[in-house]
């Protein structure tokens, strides 16, 4: 569905993208991770046809982004709502701009209102909504025309639990229907819940891509043993279970607690995005 190869983008002295390569298949959710400035938003803006790349190619279903304008659902990182327009008016505007009319528009709006828990807020102006409600409204404008490619740039930034759960539910549902989803976030547990393929961006390129299991395979876990005299033993190991058994055999001092931890998504993110060179 989405294929980006070797994208390059420079803003003056800043190299925002430097050979950014990423593909997303229909029905796949790709969680795009990376620090601020890693190139995530620039990538989303190029795919949205808001800006042009200096080099490389990007195609959506084999076509350039300019040829599929409006057929991609985009929820930008920053809120982009009209303070004096109601939630319903936002959805009607973006639905109509996507070609939806009358019954189809009304049905799409009603469905989304239920899924994103906006039903009681439909006639409230966006400027009067809470941050989480505004996030859900913005996401709804990206989803109303049921696009085959969804670009969600930190859709849950600063959002409450209700918003986060509603957003994850609807993203899973759309991916289940066959939509390709690019989901950038700093909340790593969301990617576990979405069962997303993980892509880690750093310095304007994707340095790792795969499932959590694939990427975490060689990462060390940790065995932590606390003795009764409150001394703590911590061992970083690629096989926490075997290490624990070995440790229990070798120690003859009384033990008060044992904690075995496999590599987490946080460990994975830190190891790829922060420490290792690409």
């Amino acid at each position, binding site marked *: 569905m989405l294929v980006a190869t070797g994208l390059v983008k420079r803003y003056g002295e800043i190299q925002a993208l430097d050979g950014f390569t990423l593909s997303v298949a229909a029905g796949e959710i790709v969680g795009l991770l990376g620090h601020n400035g890693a190139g995530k938003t620039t990538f989303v803006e190029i795919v949205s046809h808001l800006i042009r790349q200096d080099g490389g190619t990007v195609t959506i279903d084999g076509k350039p982004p300019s040829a599929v304008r409006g057929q991609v659902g985009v929820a930008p990182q920053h809120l982009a709502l009209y303070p004096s327009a109601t939630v319903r008016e936002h959805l009607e505007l973006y639905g109509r701009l996507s070609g939806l009319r009358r019954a189809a528009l009304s049905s799409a709006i009603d469905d989304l209102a239920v899924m994103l828990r906006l039903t009681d807020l439909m006639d409230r102006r966006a400027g009067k909504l809470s941050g989480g409600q505004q996030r859900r409204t913005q996401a709804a404008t990206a989803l109303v*025309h049921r696009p085959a490619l969804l670009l969600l740039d930190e859709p849950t930034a600063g959002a409450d639990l209700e918003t986060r759960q509603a957003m994850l539910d609807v993203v899973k549902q759309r991916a289940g229907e066959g939509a390709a989803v690019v989901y950038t976030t700093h909340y790593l547990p969301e990617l576990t819940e979405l069962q997303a393929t993980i892509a880690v961006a750093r310095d304007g390129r994707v340095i790792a891509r795969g499932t959590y299991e694939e990427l975490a395979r060689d990462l060390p876990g940790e065995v932590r043993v606390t003795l009764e005299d409150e001394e703590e033993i911590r061992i970083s190991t690629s096989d926490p279970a075997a290490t624990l058994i070995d440790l229990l055999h070798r120690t003859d001092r009384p033990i008060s607690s044992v904690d075995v931890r496999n590599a987490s998504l946080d460990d994975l993110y830190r190891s790829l995005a922060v420490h290792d060179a690409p």
Partner: protein
Amino acid sequence: MLLDVSRPGPGRLGSLLGSAHRIGALARHNMTLRLRDPGQMISYVAMPMVLMLVLKPLYVRALDGGATQVATGLMVMFSVFAISLAGNAILSERTWRTWDRLRVTRAPAAELLVGKTLPLFVVMVAQQAILLVYGCLAIGLPVPSMPHLVFLAILIWAFALLAIGAALATLVRSHGELSVISDVGALTLSSLGGALVPLSLMPEWAQLAAHASPGYWALVMMQSAVAGDVAGTLRPAGVVLAIGLLSGVFAARRLARGWGRGGLL
């Protein structure tokens, strides 16, 4: 069912209908927003009405055709003030970040611009028409013998103001900056153009400088149109139209690039 990105585009008629549908949606949305914030619009209609009434005796005693001068002069001056309506409406799209959000939709930049400015155009035409009708009813402005000529002049002037306002909105960095430029600019351009004092009473240098003011050409166009002078209307109308087209092309090019990191900033 998901939207199919690989489906072929609509035919020529379908494309035109789609375009009209999108412009209609944008225009309706923008008219709703405008009507929810009517203060500026109302003040630009009510204030010149009051000023016309207050200044009418002075103008009528001091000038031949004083009623025409006070009615058309204040109409032109306050229509120039309305540039800030257009400027604010477009600049708000930047501060709300909604313009770039709209650029991601199926509507191309030209449709976005038409859908955004159509309601403003209607408001500006209505403002000028109301002030002229008021001028005829309450101030003693002669009833135009060729109303369609006056209407054409109003359309051209509204278009030019809208384009200048849109161009201004793409150049300024804040609402405060826009407010200063549009207010000072409106007063300077319209008074230099003869909206307050007839050109014949102004110093020679000012009479020369007036030709650089769109307000001058607008006033000549309006007064000629009210007098039913077709030839006298068309020349200034051409100048006003040219100013509008130049500003419009400039604004459209800037707005098509958006305000994102790859755009105007």
